[in-house]
């Protein structure tokens, strides 16, 4: 079975990658870390990078499901 995953990037990460999103397809179970590696082959994730699945913070070992929205972004600086 094929899974469609939307990946989004924000702020300085979006700037340094030069794009704001990726649409990826996977077969079989994947983690947040797998998604980063596939989307950014050969680029280690910057220190302190945060990850969210469906707008909730997650661990990089979290399993991602078909249709999930995965987001990567630097530490937040609001307020």
């Amino acid at each position, binding site marked *: 079975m094929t899974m469609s995953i939307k990946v*989004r990037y*924000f702020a300085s990460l979006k700037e340094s990658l030069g794009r704001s999103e990726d649409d990826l397809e996977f077969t079989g179970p994947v983690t947040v870390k797998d998604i980063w590696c596939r989307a950014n082959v050969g680029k280690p994730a910057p220190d302190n990078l945060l990850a*969210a699945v469906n*707008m909730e913070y997650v661990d990089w070992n979290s399993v991602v499901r078909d249709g999930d929205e995965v987001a990567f972004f630097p*530490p*937040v*600086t609001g*307020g």
Partner: protein
Amino acid sequence: MAVKIYAQGFDPWQEVQAYQNAARQMAGKFGATNVFIGTMRDFNEGDDVKSMHLEHYPGMTEKQLEKIIAEARRQWSVIDALVVHRVGEILPNEPIVLVVVWASHRGDAFDASRYIMEALKSKAPFWKKEALLSEDQRWVEKNTDGYKRE
């Protein structure tokens, strides 16, 4: 309870009054209101700042702010709470964030308001990019801990 994200400037005093006036059931019931306003300064880390761009993650920002308020209500006795946050282009002296907590007692109002601000600073997906007077641009890298004494 309300969470509002504004792409345009807002008047924090107007926001508080409008919300409080609309919440008629609160009249006579709250004894303590704590308001925090974060305002853009014209300097940061020794540099003159001309303007700031505030990016956010629409949807996740609101969701996280609502969770933060819910957590504050679990920890303290809160009657109502309001959070307003700017996004987009912001100029010095413009308000960035407004947090208001209404409670029966002042301890709860102070504690919950401060909790919401600290949690917002560490969990709500907003990112600031400063445009300096020198024409340089830079991302703000990290929020400081507001509970820490310098």
